[in-house]
């Protein structure tokens, strides 16, 4: 699993960070940082949930 964020769409709502903080972090500068672009299998369910719950549909997954 590889995480790709469309930074033109992302608006830093930080929903993804709430669901998978090991992977997504919105810092005090309001920027989203991807902490782990290739998360391990134990995180896949929550990363998928983050993909779905992103209000901007800005996150996609590649195999």
């Amino acid at each position, binding site marked *: 699993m590889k995480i790709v964020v469309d930074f033109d769409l992302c608006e830093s709502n930080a929903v993804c960070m709430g669901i998978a903080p*090991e992977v997504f972090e919105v810092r*005090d500068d*309001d920027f989203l940082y991807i902490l782990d672009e290739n998360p391990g299998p134990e995180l896949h369910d929550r990363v998928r949930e983050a993909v779905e719950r992103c209000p901007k549909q800005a996150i996609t997954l590649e195999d």
Partner: protein
Amino acid sequence: MIVFAKPSSGVPSRPSRSKTEQAAPLTATDSLAHIVIVGASLAGMQAAQMLRRGGYDRSLTIIGDEPHYPYDRPPLSKQYLAGSWDESKLRLRAAVDPDELGIDWRIGVPARALELSGSSVMMADGTSIPYDGLIIATGASARRLPGPDLEGVYVVRSLDDARALRDAFDAEPKRVAVIGAGFIGAEVAATARERGLEVTMIEAAKSPLGRVLDTAAGLAIADLHRSHGVDVRLGVGVHSLVSGEGAGAHTVAGVALADGTVVEADVVVVGIGVTPNTGWLEGSGLTIDDGVVCDETCLAAPGVVAAGDVARWPNVRFGEQLTRVEQWDNAVDQGAYVARRLLAEDEVAPFAPVPWFWSDQYDRKIQLAGMPTSSAEVVHGSMAEQRFVQIYGRPDRDELVGALAWNRPRQAVQARQLIEQRATMAEARETLGG
């Protein structure tokens, strides 16, 4: 506009989110040979996706009154109205390929009635669609002002509404009057200003967003708009719309206010809230009272569930009171929940989320988690710098129940988790303050 840095690496260890509700396993039973979803909406689409993902492989029909596949509404008052997005970007991702989920689409024809005893949905074209399980996700419609329809008066709820308003903005009107400083009105005012249009925003209450924000936070919204050149009129109601003279008798020319003044405007946008779309359910036997009344598991009748803006249910997290939530995130969450609810053979935990929504106006991101109360305090930043966190306590005991964040998305997410964990106000101050 928020700008984003490139991804960096480095993995800090953090506790994972505690889940209070576990998804019930989905079981496609023989008793549910056909599930019908009324509402080609965000909630309806999410329910369909969750049914399929859970292994439901029987017939699935989605009915929608609009002639469009499901699309996302939040950009209608922002990116789409601004002209920076075209319609192709609005389609919900799960509906980009309409054949993907094996759905029988009935779009462009509204449902007209529900026959509970016969388990079928009567369509406006005279056909009827039988069901074994029914998901009601018909959403809500924009309220309009009484009086004759005038040209130049708009609401923003559907894609067709937004397209008409965008065309009107393209024609460069002299002044746009926005009636109602709720979230839709405020976002439309911000987008119109960013397009260089002159804007007057009229609100009957003393402060904008009075239904959700306290007076001080509402007035900060008014300041934000004034600093961007909006003529904000607070505490004054609308008397009537004014039409033009002669050939313009059917076209709006302004808004007459209760204080006797007239705001001249060639485009008027009405943002005075919504009413749930329950007309088709009258006489069905379902309890209809400002929405489809459900139990704490979103069940309206045996085999019938409701989700999204149309559903009214008791969120037991906050008490017994029935609530109806008009929010994007709730539509996603509740749509997924009712799919599980419909298929689950065992008891399902109540639907008791911590609500959350956002609004973008100019370069401000406003997020509200949980429920605002009158017990409010600013614990981070200040309203004057328009970058702050305000927290809300439960009146009867020491518990965080809500938080408002302006350009503080990180704290908004933390607050939502603290509310879920029933944190004390002191814990909230400690985590969110500074």
